[in-house]
């Protein structure tokens, strides 16, 4: 009998039954979809961003549709880490799949503090450090630009958090590879990319920015070519595994990221179009591997990269 092709992996020690992850901020705490969707279709769910203090987020409107994409300016609305530990944490076990926390701070110290609080929290199997949110003024993106800052920030988290540390990057960095290498050398276990691109829409009828926050983060299929390129470049720059994302809606999209060098892929915006996207891509991937005579999807990781391109 022919063996079923395998999708399971260990990503820096996180045991996942497939390389498909729900992207942070697009899947709430998982519960929102849990009544309807079999969450075991996900290799892991990355929770929405958490900060030390509660944040009310940006004023509406927070969403704008753009060609094959959308802008969001949620601004990290969340009830804060205390509420999270008290109210959310105890229920996370019900989700039935690995859960990763996503943290954001306004200073290196805040990131450190958040990571220290989450260290040893059994329900959380890794932290993803968001240093690339385009929607918050004094946090987010500015941290992700400068390799020296990234190094300091990741080191600080690394010292207090014993589980896997994922660093989430944007494209705003002038030199993406340098930022990735800085994170790697500071002890990051995994890099995830890309976060949304900063964009805006002008309401021409009212002659003012459409979003309450003026600018927002562009996600969805529109950014996919840019995201695939970022993963491809990063795969040539660092040795740690990558989580690729940005506009994945179909199996072909997911394969592009994997072939470009991603070990896992995350899906955000596409959940809004097709809430069964994880199931559909997972089924498709199995069939694809079967048809192509591959035993494990990992044979595809980076397979589009020439040896020359790799360092």
């Amino acid at each position: 009998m022919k063996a079923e092709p395998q999708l399971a992996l260990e990503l820096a020690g996180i045991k996942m039954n497939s390389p498909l992850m729900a992207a942070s901020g697009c899947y709430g705490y998982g519960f929102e979809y849990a009544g309807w969707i079999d969450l075991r279709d996900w290799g892991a769910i990355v929770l929405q961003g958490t900060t030390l203090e509660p944040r009310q987020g940006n004023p509406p409107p927070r969403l704008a549709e753009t060609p094959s994409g959308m802008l969001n300016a949620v601004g990290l609305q969340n009830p804060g880490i205390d509420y999270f530990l008290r109210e959310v944490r105890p229920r996370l076990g019900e989700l039935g799949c690995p859960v990763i926390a996503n943290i954001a701070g306004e200073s290196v110290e805040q990131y450190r503090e958040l990571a220290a609080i989450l260290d040893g929290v059994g329900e959380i199997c890794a932290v993803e450090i968001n240093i690339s949110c385009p929607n918050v003024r004094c946090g987010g993106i500015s941290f992700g630009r400068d390799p020296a800052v990234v190094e300091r920030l990741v080191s600080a988290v690394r010292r207090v958090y014993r589980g896997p540390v994922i660093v989430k990057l944007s494209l705003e960095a002038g030199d993406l590879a340098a930022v990735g290498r800085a994170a790697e050398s500071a002890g990051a276990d995994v890099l995830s990319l890309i976060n949304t691109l900063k964009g805006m829409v002008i309401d021409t009828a009212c002659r003012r920015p459409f979003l309450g926050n003026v600018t927002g983060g562009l996600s969805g299929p529109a950014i996919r070519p840019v995201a695939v390129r970022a993963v491809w470049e990063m795969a040539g720059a660092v040795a740690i595994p990558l989580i690729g994302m940005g506009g994945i809606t179909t199996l072909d999209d997911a394969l592009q990221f994997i072939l470009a060098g991603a070990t896992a892929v995350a899906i955000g915006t596409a959940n809004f179009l097709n809430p069964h996207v994880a199931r559909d891509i997972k089924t498709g991937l199995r069939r694809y591997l079967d048809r192509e005579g591959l035993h494990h999807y990992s044979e595809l990781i980076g397979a589009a990269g020439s040896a020359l391109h790799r360092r």
Partner: protein
Amino acid sequence: MDRDNKLEHRCLLLENREVVPGWHLLELQAPDLVHASPGQFVQLRVGRLTDPLLRRPVSIHYAEPEKGRIRLLFRVAGRGTALVSGFKAGDNVDLLGPLGRGFPCLDEEEPAIFVAGGIGLAPLFFAAAQRSRVSLPFEFFLGGKSGSLLPPEGYFQAHGIKPRLVTDDGSRGGSGPVTALLEEYLETNKAPLRIHACGPGPMLAGVVELARSAGAAVHVSLESRMACGVGACLGCVYPFRSGDQVEYRRVCREGPVFNGEEVLFES
């Protein structure tokens, strides 16, 4: 966690009829959605490719559990709804739902007053029809731009709804804002009564104001642009009063129907 509920439904479109210019009524075979409550909505996929990207929220306008059918009534407001207006009988329509929380206390004895502005009619029609079916008392006030842009009487009669109409141009019913009808009503009818409203923001603000003065309970159905529709993305929020703080609540999850007194309308 109960996963017996399906979220996504591919529904056969039985009819797409332009009720009045720019308003389309979709009749759908959707047995899984017929037990939705008035005020709940669906997220409708408008295109097959990625532009337009997002689903569009549309209230359930009517449900016929016996026939396994629901109706949606929508106004062509932009490119998404323009695409939907071209859907043809026989097409499959992709819906998520039923979503959100509907109007409360629709089965209570106290009189219900429905105040609809324009296409705000869509969810209130369902609510009123439900009360009518079990012979509970209600009033239905409806305002619109012009008489020819509102459905004809027959549209309501079959469901036991006799709307009192006003139009901006006075071409049908009286002229003036629909809130005037409510104001007049509240002068002679005192609480306990329960107001349910749907329509443009300023109208809702007016309704809430009147309700407050009259001491009546008031619920409003809010609109906002949505992405997920299920509470996961925090994109659809509206500002609310919470003590002396502003708090953003999700229209798709905590709403779309909210206690009107807590809503912070733009002023």
